[in-house]
């Protein structure tokens, strides 16, 4: 669930924009902009509030498009724009730009622009500025401190730790970017440690304590407090990894298990285990452009994994993973993409439409 912004201003793509260098076409679902050359569309603007987030609701037709958001701050000379790169995807999901994270952003800017490279075709529904009041921003920052990441393959190498952001929209997708767009909370905790150590030391000196004792107490109390807060924060995050594993894997039936973003891969492996045992070679058909991977190599061993098609004559057991185009008809004929049947046999077990174990009749 995304939190609602305190205030927002929606900016439609209309006559207020300078569209002279692009081809604009009204569709039922936004304005289709075609860019025969590298071009910028600009307009003047006056934001009634302090904006910290820009949401560009647009779809790139064809492939994803790199674009630029530009703004002219009133503090800069005329004609000088600051530019910020972003991407528009072909899937239609909105691009959220956390303007508040950039020191150059100025809510009093009087002109904005969007720049696209030659050949881009984008359908823009809206451009919306959002802003939050002071207390909402502080509350969002506090909540983002307690927003946890998930157990990833990189978690044994490093952990992002508490990340701060001002935007509720951004907090909802905090760890989906690499690196997360936000500040490390340590940027606040480190100065806080120094400040609190100084304050405690000063207070104790005023109370007549010896300087060395006061300093040691100041440093000790500050360090201990910050350590306890961070230990609690990171400890709960790691426990949340375990809780997630329990709900998505441990407590699920075998065929429904999912492990850390691998979807039903581990469920397929578990169900295929009795059918792989004792085999010298097995076949694997997986997503296009994705190699077999260390997971299957490890779990299948000593069976060697082959991805060769047409199927070699000595392989009778095939793992198919995330191939909705792989089908087995009522006669047991296995084909991919509706092409000529590759082999004939039976489906031994299945975890989803495109993931199953196939036993070929040799």
């Amino acid at each position: 669930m995304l939190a609602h912004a305190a205030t927002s201003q929606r900016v439609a793509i209309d006559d207020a924009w300078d569209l002279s260098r692009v081809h604009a076409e009204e569709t039922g679902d936004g304005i289709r902009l075609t860019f025969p050359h590298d071009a910028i569309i600009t307009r003047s603007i006056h934001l009634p509030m302090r904006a910290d987030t820009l949401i560009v609701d647009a779809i790139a037709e064809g492939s994803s498009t790199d674009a630029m958001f530009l703004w002219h701050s009133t503090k800069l000379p005329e004609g000088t724009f600051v530019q910020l790169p972003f991407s528009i995807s072909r899937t239609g999901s909105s691009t959220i730009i956390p303007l508040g994270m950039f020191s150059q952003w100025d809510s009093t800017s009087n002109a904005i622009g969007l720049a696209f490279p030659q050949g881009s075709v984008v359908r823009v529904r809206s451009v919306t500025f959002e802003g939050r009041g002071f207390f909402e921003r502080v509350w969002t920052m506090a909540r983002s401190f307690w927003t946890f990441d998930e157990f990833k393959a990189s978690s044994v190498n490093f952990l992002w730790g508490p990340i701060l952001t001002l935007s509720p929209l951004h907090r909802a997708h905090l760890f989906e970017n690499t690196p997360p767009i936000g500040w490390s909370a340590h940027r606040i905790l480190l100065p806080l440690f120094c400040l609190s150590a100084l304050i405690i030391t000063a207070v104790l000196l005023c109370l007549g304590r010896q300087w060395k004792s006061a300093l040691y107490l100041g440093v000790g109390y500050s360090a201990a407090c910050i350590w306890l807060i961070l230990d609690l924060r990171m400890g709960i995050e790691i426990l949340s990894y375990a809780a997630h594993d329990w709900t998505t894997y441990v407590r699920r039936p075998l065929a429904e298990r999912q492990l850390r973003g691998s979807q039903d891969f581990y469920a397929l492996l578990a169900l295929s285990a009795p059918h792989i045992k004792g085999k010298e070679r097995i076949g694997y058909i997986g997503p296009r452009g994705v190699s077999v991977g260390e997971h299957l190599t490890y779990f299948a061993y000593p069976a060697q994994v082959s991805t060769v098609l047409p199927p070699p004559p000595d392989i009778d057991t095939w793992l198919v993973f995330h191939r909705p185009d792989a089908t087995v008809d009522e006669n047991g004929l296995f084909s991919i993409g509706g092409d000529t049947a590759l082999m004939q046999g039976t489906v031994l077990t299945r975890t989803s439409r495109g993931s199953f174990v196939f036993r070929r009749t040799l």
Partner: protein
Amino acid sequence: MTPLLALLLGFAIPALGAGIALRLLEGRSAVLTVLERFLLSLTLGPTLGMFVVFLVHSLTQAPLHARLFLEVLLGIDLALLIVYIMRRRTFLPPLVAAAPRVQIPRAALVLLVTLSLWTLIKIAVAGTTFLLLVPTYASDALDNWNLRGKVFYEDQALTLILPGQTAEAAKSGVSSYPPTVPLFKTYLATLHGDWHEALVNAPHAVWFLLLLSLLFALLLRLTGWPFALLGIVILVGLPLELMHGTTNYADVFVSLHLLAAVGLLLLTMRSDKHQRAGLLRVAGLSAAALAWTKNESVLLYLPIFAALWMLCLYFFHVPSRRIPLRASAGALLLVTCVLLPWLIFKWSHGLTFGNAKPLSSLAFAWQPGVLSAIAINLFFEGNWLMLPVFFPILLLMCHRKVLSGTLIIPTGFVLAVSAGHMVLYLFTPLSAEALMQTGFGRGLIHIAPIVVLVTTALLPGFLREARRD
């Protein structure tokens, strides 16, 4: 045999031999506490036991199944037991000093107990879930530690060319690492009779618990039980340490052996002259086991450890250097007995050194961007809480105690290793390990327990200064 029984016997059999060997090395008077000897047996026994199995298998090509493992390990146990029985009559009363008695205020006790319970919850929940209830997930386990163990188990041999590898690629890949951890997994699987995921991953939980217990035992001698418990709380509190302790990577395994070796050297220098020789010999056995953990141990940790050893002998003005020199010669012999066969094996099979990258290919030049990557890892991520800030401050505020006492040994080790890491990351293509935030953090895992040992050992003095008025 059930997985649990295989795990218990798997550790117990080599630990028995190690326990006897440790008692014999201590000399006529025991210089280790029962707890220390128990923990070191469980640490060194499996490691050195796997070394002997490796030797026997390499020389005889006997297949790696339960019979070979049991014959070798039980044979070692029996031989050592015979020597122990023959020497037992010469043993004198133990020379172990009692742990310092510490009184702590009630409020501090309540806080300590609360933190300890929190620590226990974290270890139990994360360790059980990540190691025992979900399948192997981490990359290095899938293509190194677990994969090699499974290949050894299925092939019943020390196969160097892994699935999907060419012979040439295998020489500079993960097969260049000592096979200790994979071989131990193979051993457990042979005892159980099948490759069982939870069984082969469980040793990582045992090694983590051993690491915490050994840290406790060392701090018990230095500071008493409250601070020893606090040391465990601090170490488990480090998020990346907890992640490594509860996943099937081998870096905690290395850190356990490092802590054993450096900790024993520290105890040696804190002991009186009657205990010194025995502790030195035990430290030598730990150093020998360290050589059999990872390539970094041979290339970086052992040389620094050896340099510290020699500095200790020189600076501590031992009235009679004869005993420590003899014990040092014995330690060198033990290390050589492990290192030499392993180096011969690597040379004869064309295996390289380096962290799965051959060292010979490393050019020496400044690597841009590494300093900021390291700063981000240390100060602006969630890996170490704020220990990289607090530790230098603590060293500075307690510098007199560090420089004038025996804590200079583990502190010097940490600083030397850190300097070594920095040189590698700042001046060689290993900088990718820092830039990509991969191997850098894992290198710090190796020395984190020693950092916590020093931190905790300095705390009593710090608190005394704080309370002085």
